[in-house]
């Protein structure tokens, strides 16, 4: 599904130039659960932004289903983000003035789903994640774990092919962390989506099917940590084949 070829990314943070990625080669197969682990500031989030088409590499290629995301215009990237990619952020990033249900619906606004259908889909997904009774609550009225469930619902409601999670448990306590990771793993198994989780937490990384370590802007070859779902074989290069 994904192929990253010699990807480099440099950006400015104030007067400082940051070399976030320094020649990354990576392949992610369809339906895989990949954890990208590494300490803070090593380029994990930057890698995720590139996979989601939210940023462009300074050099190199980011191929998604054969298309180079770096070369697509904004008008071509927006539909991909609206349908193919789902994002989950460390700080949840819910819209503070919208209820849980309305936050989930925002993901369907871009897909131009009619209002009545949007509401139904949103409630259905919230129900799947055990949040139906909190649908009318604002984010400020929800716990961290509940907010992250709503964020996951928002990412899933459009039935994406890829779910990209940036430190999804970073702001949660241990028990909630396990709940959320377990939820993500369950969704991966049940829905067959491609799941890429960026984390510094080994406990989270261990739950993934494959684990890649990023250090100083470079990715070490992924290591298989979990058996693939039935009918899939994980290739050492990181590509799984049926």
């Amino acid at each position: 599904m994904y192929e990253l070829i010699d990807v480099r990314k440099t950006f400015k943070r104030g007067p400082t130039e940051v070399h976030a990625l320094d020649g990354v080669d990576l392949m992610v197969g369809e339906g895989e659960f990949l954890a990208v682990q590494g300490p803070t500031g090593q380029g994990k989030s930057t890698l995720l932004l590139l996979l989601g088409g939210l940023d462009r590499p300074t050099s190199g290629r980011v191929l998604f289903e054969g298309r180079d995301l770096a070369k697509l215009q904004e008008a071509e990237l927006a539909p991909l983000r609206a349908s193919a990619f789902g994002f989950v952020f460390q700080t949840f990033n819910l819209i503070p003035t919208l209820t849980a249900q309305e936050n989930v619906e925002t993901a369907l606004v871009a897909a131009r789903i009619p209002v009545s259908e949007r509401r139904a889909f949103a409630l259905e997904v919230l129900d799947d994640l055990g949040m139906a009774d909190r649908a009318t609550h604002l984010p400020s009225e929800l716990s961290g774990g509940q907010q992250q469930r709503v964020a996951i619902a928002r990412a899933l409601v459009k039935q994406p092919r890829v779910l990209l999670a940036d430190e999804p448990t970073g702001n949660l306590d241990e028990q909630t962390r396990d709940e959320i990771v377990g939820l993500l793993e369950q969704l991966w198994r049940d829905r067959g989506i491609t799941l890429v989780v960026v984390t510094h937490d080994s406990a989270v990384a261990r739950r993934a099917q494959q684990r890649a370590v990023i250090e100083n802007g470079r990715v070490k070859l992924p290591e298989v940590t979990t058996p693939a779902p039935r009918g899939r074989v994980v290739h050492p290069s990181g590509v799984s084949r049926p």
Partner: protein
Amino acid sequence: MYFTYIRRELRRRLKQSLVIALGLALGIALVITVSSASAGVKNAQRQVLHSLYGVGTDMTVTRTATRSQVGPQRLRGFGGAPPAGGARHIARSVRHPEPGSATLPASDVAKVSSLSGVAAASGGLVLTDTSFSGVIPSAGGGFGGSGSSTTKPSFSLNSFTVDGVEIGAGAVGPLTRTQVTRGSYFSAADPSASVAIVSATYAHQHGLQVGSTIHVAGKKLKVIGIANVSSGAADVYLPLATAQKLADLKGKITTVFVSVSSASHVSTVAAEVKAALPSPTVSTSADLANEVSGALSSASTLTSSLGRWLSVAALAVAFLVAGLLMMAAVSRRVREFGTLKAIGWRTRRIVAQVVGEGLALGLLGGLVGIAVGIAAAGAISAVAPSLGATVGSSFATGGGFGPLVGGRVAGSGPFGGARTVLVHLTAPLQAHTIAIALGLAVAGGLVAGAFGAWRAARLRPADALRSVG
């Protein structure tokens, strides 16, 4: 989703929203108030001109008195000295044209009427009736000398203005049929009848009603009507022939009132009149407007220059502050907009959201501003302050009435040529003013939204999501 998001977002930053809305409201309220006051001043100016000029009149033709004709009015013929130890009671009255003006032959009206571009013309005789009465004691009277009278001297001077009106002149002249609110207008059947129409103010001051009797030049006249005329207009109106007879000015007029067929022909007709008549003084309403001084003139300057610039400045500041505050608000929502882009929202959708927020604030400010502006205009109309407008200059040469009065009396009256008219200032609301105000509100909202939208459009999702929230 769209309107819900706007409503909730504006409520979330309520203080900032109120600052933006109230800033716009202030600018819009100023626009409405100044525009309404300006319209009120124009109405007042029109009222002043009508009172001095007559309804339907575009110009007047008069003749300025020569130096030999100008001088203090003299009330002669008081008889001999009072008897020793006694006193003489005296009373005199005269009717005379306005100081500084000379008479014209009545045939000048026909000459003017025949000129091309003249829709109608009528003659008028503008007089002042001055009455003097008093008691003159014998020599040394009041000072206790031998043979002196014990009576103290006392005098009173009264005057009122009289306009002789050409009956059947139509809608041009100092008094028209429609201005008579009680009683009736003059009858064309008897152009020299001993009748009078008085102004409502004069009637109120002297307790007159339809059917009452007044005295002009010692002659009894019956009041047949009471007219609603502007302050500064005449007190008493007589048929022209009656006024000419009482003033001993048969066949004479002081003013030709002219109505022009088209406003664009006024200057052309004025030139033709000057060529047709010997030494006329032709005054158009524009000339008269230029001569107006006093509080009304100051109010006109205030509303047209200071008021207008103040409104423009207030609006410009409100627009700028609104725009900067919207930009600041968008800067604080960088992570929010970055997330929306991440989940698939296009830039134009986010821009539409921000512009919508600006527009909502603009409309809110507009509604408040319109309400405040209407209230302010209403307050001006309710208070209706009196403004004076003075027209013309004094023709009196000083000296006045000699030893009894002395000096020159300015203001309307027998000795001063300047005429002061009092009008009440209102601030009428006009539909187009409200429409303009609403348009400005929308524009203000769009400007504010555009500032914020520009900032939002430039956001890059990666930079937004990297920023510390």
